[in-house]
């Protein structure tokens, strides 16, 4: 590490790195990347080998090569669809312009383009749905966790409920949520699709618990001395929560939020399959039903996308935590 620091501290030299330093830097980079790269290469080789020897009713199990082909074709489909959309709006504009030229008072219609949702549209839908469900859960769970941590009575009365609902699978909630949304969300001009609400609320139900539990633990383990400072100063409850409780509990709150988001992302895929929310879950389900020779490859692309997005979401939360936390030295993983 000191060697790297020395490289960057060299400010007088005309070129930033001398050749020997460059070699040193490359060697460090190489060391950092070598093992992960080796892991990936070995994994890909094993995967290709195993895939070659598995024949399913939908053809051969997809190996890395087929998956790469399918991901290219999904990108191409997306681009084609975007071009079609642009063309559609162009035609519509021309038509309307002609109409208006003939008769300035003509009643022109502007219709939205209703093309097929591409893989990338579906990713966006999934991200939007999970964010919505996660946000609703966090807005409920953080205050609830703080209340549980501050008051033994609240904790005693809520804990059994938390412990009972925590292990419930999202698949058990889904029918209930579906029926509730159908019964309660009646509107002629709905802002949200029902399938969206069903998926999002199922995510919410599964996202609540890790945040509630971790926030409670964070709040109950505040340093006694700090609580005594607050008592001596007779801080009003709200100030106490804002200046002492929340900053103390921030690391645990974030641990909870990250667990919740990871759970939510997993739950979302299952919920979308069943609720037919047009996200990644539905994509997989549709490909499965479709059953063409390309389906398995496309599903595998989706699987990888789900994994990478889940990973990125966690990194994103970590970055947010880094920004918010006061303890810049804390090692966050």
């Amino acid at each position, binding site marked *: 590490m000191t060697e790297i620091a020395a490289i960057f501290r060299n400010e007088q030299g005309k070129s930033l790195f001398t050749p020997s330093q460059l070699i040193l830097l490359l060697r460090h980079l190489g060391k950092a990347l070598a093992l992960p790269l080796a892991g990936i290469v070995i994994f890909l080789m094993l995967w290709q080998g195993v895939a070659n020897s598995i024949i399913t009713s939908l053809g051969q199990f997809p190996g890395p090569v087929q998956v790469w082909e399918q991901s290219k074709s999904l990108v191409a489909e997306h681009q084609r669809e975007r071009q079609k959309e642009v063309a559609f709006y162009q035609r519509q504009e021309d038509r309307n312009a002609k109409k208006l030229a003939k008769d300035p008072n003509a009643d022109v219609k502007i219709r939205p383009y209703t093309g097929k949702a591409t893989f990338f549209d579906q990713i966006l839908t999934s991200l939007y749905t999970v964010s919505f469900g996660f946000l609703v859960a966090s807005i409920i769970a953080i205050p609830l966790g703080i209340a549980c941590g501050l008051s033994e009575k609240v904790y005693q009365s809520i804990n059994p409920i938390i412990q009972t609902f925590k292990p419930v699978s999202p698949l058990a909630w889904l029918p209930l949520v579906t029926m509730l949304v159908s019964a309660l969300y009646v509107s002629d001009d709905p802002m949200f699709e029902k399938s969206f609400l069903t998926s999002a609320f199922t995510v919410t139900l599964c996202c609540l618990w890790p945040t509630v539990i971790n926030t409670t633990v964070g709040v109950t383990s505040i340093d006694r001395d700090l609580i005594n400072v607050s*008592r001596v100063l007779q801080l009003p409850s709200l100030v106490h929560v804002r200046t002492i409780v929340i900053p103390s509990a921030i690391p645990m709150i974030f641990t909870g939020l990250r667990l919740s988001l990871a759970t939510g992302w997993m739950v979302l895929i299952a919920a979308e399959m069943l609720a037919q929310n047009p996200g990644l879950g539905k994509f997989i389900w549709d490909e499965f039903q479709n059953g063409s020779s390309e389906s398995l490859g496309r599903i595998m692309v989706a699987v990888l996308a789900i994994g990478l997005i889940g990973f990125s979401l966690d990194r994103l939360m970590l970055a947010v935590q880094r920004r918010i936390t006061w303890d810049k030295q804390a090692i966050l993983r």
Partner: protein
Amino acid sequence: MKNSYLEISHVGIEFPTDDKPFRALQAVDISIDKGEFISLIGHSGCGKSTVLNIVAGLYEATEGGVILEGKEVDKPGPDRAVVFQNHALLPWLTVYQNVELAVKRVFKKTKSKAEMHDWIEHNLSLVHMDHALHKLPGEISGGMKQRVGIARCLAMQPKVLLMDEPFGALDALTRAHLQDSLMEIQTNLGNTVIMITHDVDEAVLLSDRIVMMTNGPAATVGEILEVKLARPRDRLALAEDAEFIHYRQQVLRFLYEKQKNPAAEKEAKTEAELPTKATLDSDTTAKSEAA
């Protein structure tokens, strides 16, 4: 009953434990005048912090009670500021903000924003921390943190300043410096102070009276020593002063003759065992040298 400023009257406390309740304090009586500087001294674990916490209102006495200016203490409040043993600064607030939190609570109605700002800086300069106003507690040394903790309490202008081994974590030089500052502040402001200490010299130098506590359980006030040294006191002059040495002797005699420390006895025993170990070691060296 006397009518003093702060009356600790027949205080006893029991802590609930798994089998039978643990009696930490029994019939503690201390009456303190306004502006008096009192030290509590006693062996570790005897119950000094517990007395302080009861005066602060952080613990509730099982029997007896504490009366400050004719009013019974029933909850903690900013009129009884506490300097905690481990500084107890909020780690996410800067030095300045930590003091500000207290100042805002106490002077919100009586001081303007600018006055509060000056007051915060004034108190931090009293403890020589004006150079690190915008540092976080994690970025300063343990001794500095303790100084900020003291500044926070001084800034509250409490009726009683309660200090739990405030200088225990400081190096000797800083400690002497802070003791002098504290004496000076006390002369100027006339704070009523109860300070817990382990340091006999510190107790004699700073106090008007030294309250010596017996060993627990069921600890109580053993003796009270009145220190009639003239103020202002000068540590250099006093070091050889016969009266000072006499007071010092009396405290030491109480601590090490009348209230023998069980922990110290244990230590003495381990020390007695040490030479045996040393001989063993030299034996092995001799052997390895021979080989």
